[in-house]
Structure formats: structure tokens, C-alpha cells
């Protein structure tokens, strides 16, 4: 749905960022390198002995929703093979990549590790191959240059192009050498010179034309056009791991260079007693220096995260005026794909993580319509949150199925279906969603494929709930206020705090954006409460005795996403070209039907 959006806002933002970043890369490197691949080879030989004795690249850690899915994706599209003894590890043309199943707070672009780079002998051919993959499976996101091309032959860089993995890591494909092989890590910096110098001073790296060499790993450094890049902590590329024979010698050197660091120490959840040092390089590049034998740390499974959320009572933050503080930027993205009713053949209490990821992806693919290009070519649809494993929204009745629908309810549903099939005589024959009027309640709260943002703003005695899609704001008074009696599309909402839960009762619907047949008689009761700092539980109880024989209740969670999400103006009606197109097509259909069929 959502033919009203002209350009999905996130697409536009991504393209603005991309343009600036690429301009800066170009300016920086234009005159510097003639033949990158040969320089690289020379660099390798010259610098290996100049770094700390035994300092070598160990791994790059990427945050992904599912390590298993990520391994498959990398093995399918890049020169990577699984490492048998390590479940989350893959070897990619000379670089070990470690996948951690964890929520990230955003992609790598915009951080100080802007992208990682792979060398291919024929980048144009490789990009064409990736373009043909389509959106099936986990898909490949392509990042086009301003001129719409997937590759560019750039002075000092050569032929290159960019893709994204499905979890937000930006990946460059660069024409170099025999390939395919890992090529370099690309740092974005406020000040390229001092960044390079830092690696030389603190870690014994060697300066190169493009940046530095650290052991056998090339770091290219370019200026970040948008000022200071974000740090890498908890982003898609979380950190770079280096292995060193003697952590103590490095610790001494770091101390002498005035660098803050932690360790050497063996973290409590390390798989063995091996030590490591953690430090932040310039612009928040997170570096992990590990001793030989390092076997990583135990992952926290999402199971445990969920159990914590359910079992431990959470004391929510309060506003300065003493009400539970629900304010912030929430999204329903992780709940996208949860069916309203429990599937009849479901036998488990919840899905596995892999099933949940697949269900959400199917939901996305079913609903993207003409947005394939946007979904593929951009970061649209990226989500830092793992898909919800909830089996169905309905929690009451306990069987997860809607109560019996009355005859009136069945007739209303049939009428609604019939209306959808007619050739529209005018706007009134189309849904209120297509017309950019409203999705109605509770539909407007439900997660969809995009623009799932939910901003909650509080002032003393009021909670405003603003949904990004169509841009609708419900102002809910939480003091005792009689209802106005005025019938409205979204009814009249009145709230109250019961403990830490906000209970909102909604009635006085105008009935014109009915929910499954429930119109003016609909009564909706919502419950909002924080399960933890980042999880807002939303329960909705639906009543209309004309439609269902008993009330029923659904539930799903919104996740907080202050770091990466912001409501973007969803000017739906203002760009509703879909209306013009649908109605002119309907008039063409009229003409077709009124003309005698050709004999």
C-alpha cells in the first residue's frame, strides 16, 4: 500500500549523504594514485616489518540480525567461505569476518569505518551480476552514483561501485589485481593527516598514499564531507580486530602515545582466558587488539534478551513532572510480518529467529509493489531490530483466532471486498488510505513495510501519538475530560495512567474508515507500557458487538530507535499521483467497456 508516497524519504536522505561522501572521496584521491593494485603489492612487502612485531589483522566484526543468514549472503555474493571451526566466522579473500547476531544502531556509512572493499578483476561484470539477483532472498542493495550508473571510473581510484549487505555494511567493489580478494578498510575522517599519523604513532602503522598499512591490512582514509563521522560502536561495522604477539608491548606504546585503552584483560564472557585490548581510534573507530589464541566472546542470544524483558520488572523513567516517560522515537519495524491471527497449522509457541527473519522478509516482498528499485538501490528497509518471533498478534482469545464474526460483520466484510473490485467512478470509491485521508484505527498503529515511525511526545496531562505514515497525530488527554461527542475518523481518545501503563479508550468514530466492518460502534482500548528502555508494548482491545460475538485483544511491540530514525514528513496527499493514475485508468476502462468489442 501507500501509493501516495512519491519518493520514500529515506531514499532521498541516503542519496544526499552518498553524494557528499563521494565528492569528498574524489577530491581527496583524484591526483594521488595511478595504479592502485601495484602500489598495494609494494606496500605489503615494504611495511610488514615496520609495524609491531607480529601485529596482523585478525578480523572485522559485523553486526547482523542472523549470523547464519549473513554467512550464506557473503558466501553467495562475495569471495567468502565458511570457517569450519567457528560458527560466526567466514573467510573472505584473505580477511576473516566475524558475524555477531546483534541489533546494530545503523549502517556503516556515516561512521568512521565507512565501508570495506573487495577487489574484482572486472567490477562492471560483477555489478551486473549482482543487479540481476533481484529482491528475492536476502537481496543485494545497490548504491547508484548520481548519474544512475552502478560503476564509475574515477581518477586515482579506478573502476568501482558500492553495494550494501542486508544489515547495513557498505561494501565497495574495486577493480584491482586478479581478485576476487579483500582489498581495504575505508576510514572516513575529519582530518585525514592526523588520523593517519595516529595509526603510525600509536600502532606502528606505515603511511601510504591512500592512508596507512597496519600489518598486512590497508586502511584508506578520506575526508568526511559532513564533518565528524559517527563512531563505530554498535554500528553495522562494529570494530576491526588485530592480533598482536605481545599485548603488553603495545600497551606501553599506547600509554606513551597518550591513547586511552582498556586491557590487556580477559573479559568475563571470553571463550577462553586469552586477553585483549580495546581502544577507540580517531573519530571513534573501535579497535580490538587480541593475543594469539583469541577465540571471541560468547554471544548473548536474543532468547536471553527476551527473557530478561519479560521476567524482570522494569521501572520506567519519569518525565520531570512525574508521569511515566514514553517519549521518543519508536518504530514498528520489528513487528512487521506478524499475522493478526495465529496460523491454523502453527504448533510452536513462537518462531525461531530464522523463521521470524524469513516471515518479515516475505511480508516486505509482498508489499513493496513498485518500490523494488527503491528497496534494492538504497538503505530503505534497513532495520536494526531482529524480526519479532511472536506467532500472532491476537493474545485473547488464547487460541490466537478472532472470535466468531456476526452475520452483520460478514456482510460488512463482503461489501468492503465488493467495493474494492468496482471501477472507481471517483475518489470516493477508493479506500481512505489510497486517498491519503487515514488508515483508521487501530489500523494506523499497525506495522507496515515502511514509514513505521511512531513519535510520542508528552506534556503535563497530554500524550501525543504521531504516526509517520500519512502523518496523523492523536492528542490524548490523560486528565479526566469528557468526550466532545464530535464524531471523527479516528474517534475521540481519552487516556489515564494506571500504574505505569497508559490506558486509552477510543470511541465516537465516524465509521467511514471501518476496521474489519466495525464502524461507528467500534470501541478501542489501548494499553501502552514500557517493557524495558527500548521496548514499548502496545495492546489493543477491539469491541463491537455488532461485528464480533466477544471482544478480542492483540499485541505487538514498538522498538526505540533514537539513533537512526526520525520522522520524515510524509506528505501523502500532496504527492498523490496514484489517485490521478488510478482514476485516469478507470476512465480508460470505462471507454473500453462502452465500446463495442472488435469483431
Amino acid at each position, binding site marked *: 500500500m501507500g501509493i501516495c508516497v512519491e519518493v520514500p524519504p529515506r531514499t532521498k536522505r541516503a542519496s544526499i549523504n552518498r553524494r557528499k561522501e563521494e565528492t569528498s572521496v574524489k577530491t581527496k584521491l583524484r591526483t594521488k594514485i595511478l595504479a592502485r593494485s601495484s602500489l598495494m603489492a609494494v606496500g605489503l612487502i615494504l611495511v610488514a616489518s615496520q609495524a609491531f612485531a607480529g601485529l596482523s589483522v585478525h578480523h572485522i566484526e559485523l553486526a547482523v540480525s542472523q549470523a547464519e543468514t549473513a554467512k550464506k549472503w557473503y558466501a553467495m555474493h562475495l569471495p567468502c567461505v565458511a570457517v569450519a571451526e567457528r560458527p560466526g566466522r567466514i573467510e573472505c579473500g584473505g580477511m576473516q569476518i566475524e558475524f555477531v547476531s546483534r541489533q546494530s544502531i545503523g549502517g556503516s556509512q556515516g561512521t568512521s569505518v565507512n565501508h570495506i572493499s573487495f577487489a574484482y578483476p572486472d567490477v562492471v561484470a560483477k555489478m551486473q551480476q549482482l543487479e540481476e539477483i533481484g529482491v528475492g532472498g536476502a537481496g543485494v542493495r545497490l548504491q547508484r552514483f548520481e548519474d544512475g550508473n552502478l560503476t564509475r571510473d574515477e581518477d586515482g581510484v579506478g573502476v568501482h561501485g558500492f553495494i550494501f549487505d542486508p544489515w547495513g555494511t557498505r561494501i565497495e567493489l574495486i577493480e584491482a589485481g586478479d581478485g576476487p580478494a579483500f582489498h581495504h578498510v575505508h576510514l572516513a575522517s575529519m582530518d585525514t593527516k592526523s588520523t593517519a599519523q595516529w595509526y603510525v604513532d600509536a600502532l606502528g602503522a606505515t603511511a601510504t598514499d591512500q592512508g596507512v598499512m597496519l600489518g598486512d591490512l590497508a586502511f584508506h582514509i578520506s575526508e568526511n564531507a559532513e564533518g565528524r563521522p559517527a563512531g563505530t560502536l554498535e554500528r553495522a561495522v562494529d570494530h576491526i580486530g588485530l592480533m598482536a604477539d605481545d599485548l603488553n608491548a603495545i600497551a606501553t606504546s599506547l600509554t606513551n602515545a597518550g591513547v586511552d585503552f582498556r586491557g590487556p584483560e580477559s573479559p568475563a564472557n571470553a571463550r577462553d582466558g586469552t586477553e585483549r585490548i580495546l581502544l577507540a581510534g580517531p573519530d571513534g573507530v573501535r579497535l580490538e587488539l587480541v593475543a594469539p589464541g583469541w577465540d571471541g566472546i560468547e554471544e548473548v542470544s536474543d532468547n536471553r534478551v527476551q527473557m530478561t524483558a519479560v521476567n524482570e520488572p522494569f521501572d520506567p523513567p519519569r518525565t520531570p513532572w512525574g508521569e511515566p516517560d514514553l517519549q521518543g522515537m519508536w518504530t514498528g519495524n520489528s513487528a512487521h510480518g506478524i499475522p493478526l491471527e495465529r496460523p491454523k497449522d502453527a504448533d510452536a509457541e513462537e518462531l525461531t529467529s530464522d523463521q521470524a527473519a524469513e516471515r518479515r522478509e516475505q511480508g516486505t516482498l509482498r508489499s513493496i509493489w513498485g518500490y523494488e528499485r527503491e528497496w534494492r538501490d538504497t538503505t530503505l528497509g534497513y532495520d536494526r531490530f531482529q524480526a519479532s518471533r511472536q506467532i500472532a498478534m491476537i493474545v485473547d482469545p488464547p487460541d490466537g483466532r478472532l472470535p466468531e464474526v456476526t452475520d452483520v460483520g460478514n456482510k460488512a466484510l463482503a461489501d468492503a471486498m465488493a467495493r474494492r473490485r468496482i471501477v472507481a467512478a471517483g475518489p470516493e470509491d477508493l479506500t481512505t488510505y489510497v486517498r491519503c485521508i487515514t488508515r483508521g484505527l487501530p489500523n494506523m498503529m499497525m506495522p507496515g513495510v515502511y514509514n513505521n515511525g511512531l513519535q510520542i*511526545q508528552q*506534556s503535563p496531562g497530554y500524550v501525543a501519538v504521531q504516526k509517520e505514515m500519512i502523518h496523523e497525530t492523536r492528542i490524548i488527554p490523560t486528565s479526566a475530560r469528557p468526550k466532545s461527542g464530535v464524531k471523527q*475518523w479516528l474517534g475521540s481518545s481519552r487516556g489515564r495512567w494506571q500504574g505505569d501503563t497508559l490506558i486509552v479508550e477510543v470511541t465516537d468514530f465516524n465509521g467511514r474508515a471501518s476496521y474489519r466492518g466495525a464502524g461507528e460502534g467500534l470501541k478501542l482500548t489501548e494499553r501502552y507500557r514500557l517493557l524495558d528502555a527500548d521496548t514499548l508494548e502496545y495492546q489493543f482491545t477491539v469491541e463491537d458487538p455488532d461485528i464480533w460475538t466477544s471482544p478480542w485483544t492483540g499485541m505487538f511491540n514498538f522498538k526505540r530507535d533514537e539513533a537512526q530514525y526520525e520522522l520524515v514528513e510524509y506528505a501523502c496527499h500532496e504527492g498523490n499521483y496514484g489517485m490521478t493514475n488510478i482514476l485516469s485508468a478507470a476512465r480508460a476502462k470505462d471507454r473500453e467497456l462502452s465500446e463495442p468489442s472488435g469483431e
Partner: protein
Amino acid sequence: MNSARRLCLALVMVLLVGCESTTTTSDGPAIPRGWDGNPDLNGIWQTLSTANWNLESHSSYGGRSEIGVLGATPPGLGVVAGGEIPYQPWARKRQQENFQNRYTHDPEAKCYLPGIPRAHYMPYPFQVLQGDRKIMMVYGYAEANRTIHMDKENPQPAPIDSWMGRSHGRWEGDTLVVEVHGFNGEAWLDRAGNFHSWALKVEERYTLVSENVLRYEVTMNDEEVYTRPWKISLLLYRHLEDDAEILEFKCVEYSEDLLYGHLRRGATTN
């Protein structure tokens, strides 16, 4: 401009200046304050001015005769400091064309988002929700809304051009100062065709004159359209009715004939 109108404007300016001097001092009239000691702007506000018909001072004029006086514009003193908007010559011409085409071209006729500052002087109420990190304004027209970021580095670039722009706010003494930029340049400033471009940068100043009166001053800076920055100043009054609330005005359906009427079955043009 005739001399009577000039006199009116002069009087308005004297009044405006007079008000300013008494409200910007901290020992001025008692005003409500929030949890943090800043003025508390929470409430439902609305203008009594005729700014939405025409920001510049104007006599009454008629409109569509088929709806009689309902289509007429009431007279107004204007809210522009100095009386006239300092348009570049081409832009004044364009404003006059806009005026001629106002029934079909005014974004308000089409139920499009109103932009800033127009949202504040339309003849509809709006509600201020002043929280501890952001201030949200929700307008009783077209589901328009805006968030004023009080908690972000100022100014942060707008992620995308928009009708309502991107707003960053700060307190200067007892005045809420909001910088707005990142407009798409589609909005009009009133029903008289006054307009701006994408280059517009707005500085709004909200100052409580008394418990229930809020002075709203705006500096408009747009080098593409005007010869210099210019200002408007008007008053917003608090709704004191016990049952005051922002009701839905989802006006889309009232614009559909205008926008899509030619595509209806049986329309003469399709």
C-alpha cells in the same frame, strides 16, 4: 499606499514596539512557567488577525460571487513590519498572478500542508505540547504538525526538503527562538498569493505577553525572492474554553473535486 493606511501601519508599529519592551524583561508580567522555569507555552492557541487572508494591510475585497459574502475577504491592518513585503520586482508580479489564481493554486485550497509560519495564523487553533526534550505543535488544519528539536545540535541539516521545514529551538531569556530551514518552497504565506522559495530561512520568536497572550514574531529571509529580510508580528490568544481541543480537520476529501474532478465518471473533460 494611501495616507490613511500609512497612518494605520504607523500606529500598529508603535503598539508592537511598545509591547516588545515590556515583555522581554524578566520582571515583566506574571506568566506561567514549566518544570524547568522556562515559560510554559502548553495550551491551544489561535490568532484573531486576518493574516491568513493577506499578510499585508488591505481593504476588504470580494471573491467568488456565486457564494456571496462567504467568498469575500475581510479588511485587515496587516502584520508586516514596514507595511509591505520587500519583493524583488519579478516576485511581486508572481504574487499578483498567484492572487488571480488563488482559488485553484493556493495550497490551502488543495488541503496541502501549510508550511511555517502560515500554520500559526490560519483561522484554526493549534496545540503546543512542550515536553522536556522537544516541543510538538499540532495544527487544526490538514493534520499538519511539526517537532521543534530543543535537544539537537543547532542547526542540524534537514534530512530532506519538506513543507514544514526542520525546526531547532532554544530559549533566549523568556523567548522561545526557533530556526526553521529545509523548506521545499511549495507553500504560500496566505490566501493573497504571498510566497517564498526553497531558500527561505525563518526565525520565529514566541514571547508570552501575559498568561493568555503569546506574541509571535517571524523574520523571513529568502534572497531568491525578497530584497531584504522582513518581519511579521502578531498575537496568538489562548483558548480558555474548558472543553477546548484540537478536532480533526482532515480536509483532503474537500479538495478532491478541485484536484480530481476532471477524472470523475461523466466529467465533461475526460
